[in-house]
């Protein structure tokens, strides 16, 4: 299992692996926001938390279509099915690798980008905590979407269409926690709800992803 994780991380880091693509996308989206809504600091500060959450979510989405599709095309998935690894573990590892290469960098980059968007000082901690709690759910749910569309040619757009509605609860609780935190309001409830969603999806979604993957490989 560790071998699979290491291989995925290594592949992501090598040329063409797409590491940093999500991060670059996150940066560009954040930079484009002031161009589209205007440079007023108080306006930017008000929307910063929400914008960063949306940017992180879209950046996560960006790399999902390669998550399983590449392994499907070169036959790796077929071979992994015969390996002494439950498919549930395979998809969990895949999701973990996706989070480590996409979600985690986003969490770390968020405070820097928050400065650009003039996020109030009290908002930094809630933003980072909510992203750290929420992005794993995005990766796990995204893996399910990737498993659903694995056998479909040019499934990228369909993948977004399927995954985005599933992201709604995570986005609502995560962005709400960050937003309330930035306004200096109480936001613990939202963080707890967010953590609940994340843990529940981590516990349950791999079963759905593995089931779907088995059907798709037939």
């Amino acid at each position, binding site marked *: 299992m560790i*071998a699979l994780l290491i291989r995925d991380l290594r592949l992501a880091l090598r*040329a063409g692996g797409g590491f940093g693509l999500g991060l670059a996308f996150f940066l560009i989206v954040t930079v484009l926001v002031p161009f589209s809504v205007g440079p007023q600091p108080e306006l930017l500060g008000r929307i910063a938390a929400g914008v960063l959450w949306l940017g992180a979510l879209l950046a996560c989405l960006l790399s999902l279509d390669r998550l399983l599709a590449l392994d499907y095309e*070169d036959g*790796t998935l077929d071979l992994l099915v015969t390996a002494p690894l439950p498919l549930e573990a395979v998809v969990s590892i895949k999701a973990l690798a996706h989070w480590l290469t996409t979600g985690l960098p986003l969490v770390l980059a968020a405070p820097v980008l928050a400065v650009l968007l003039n996020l109030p000082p009290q908002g930094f901690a809630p933003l980072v905590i909510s992203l750290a709690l929420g992005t794993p759910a995005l990766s796990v749910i995204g893996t399910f979407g990737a498993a659903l569309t694995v056998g479909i040619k040019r499934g990228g757009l369909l993948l977004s269409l399927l995954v985005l509605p599933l992201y709604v609860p995570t986005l609502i609780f995560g962005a709400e926690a960050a937003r309330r935190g930035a306004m200096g309001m109480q936001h613990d409830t939202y963080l707890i709800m967010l953590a609940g969603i994340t843990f529940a999806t981590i516990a349950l979604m791999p079963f759905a992803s593995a089931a779907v993957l088995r059907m798709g490989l037939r």
Partner: protein
Amino acid sequence: MTLRVDNLTLARGGVPVLTGVSLTVEPGQALILRGPNGAGKTTLLRTITGLQPPLSGQITGAEDQIAYAGHADGLKAMLSVRENLMFWAQVFGRTDITAALDAYALHPLADRLAGTLSAGQKRRLGLARLLVTGRPIWILDEPTVSLDKDAVAQFAAAVRAHLGQGGSALMATHIDLGLEADVLDLTPFRAHASARAGASDEAFL
């Protein structure tokens, strides 16, 4: 471990293709499947491997015993030959890949990225993967595609050595490998168009 297949019925795309397939592969034995294109060789091999469920019938002795090599080799272009092999060895809980590099003369290529290999070299690497799994039953679907004469000889030698160690092999191939292998022609098992085997299309006929 003996691989035993009893009375297997298979469908492809909702239509039955093979019915009543029975075969056994004993340790040390190689069995070669023959049949025209579309006869269901790939479907049969994939089913025995466990990649798709049969409509009916029993497969015993396959669980966690099979190393499968299909049309795609499961290689990552951005990993070196050594890294590719090492990965598959580790997935199967092993660490030694020297024997596999030896068998297919891959030592000179060991540090090349798999993406820079020729088709034949990739295929050799794909077949070398079988050796690092340590699994006794090899299921091979057209293993000699894009191999030259020397590589075919390497492959035949690898299979012979595998059989010598009590392993077994089930393969679909048109090339004569010079192995003392049994041959099973799939043509008689071809499902009749009117056959009722439980394939999904039949509900609509």
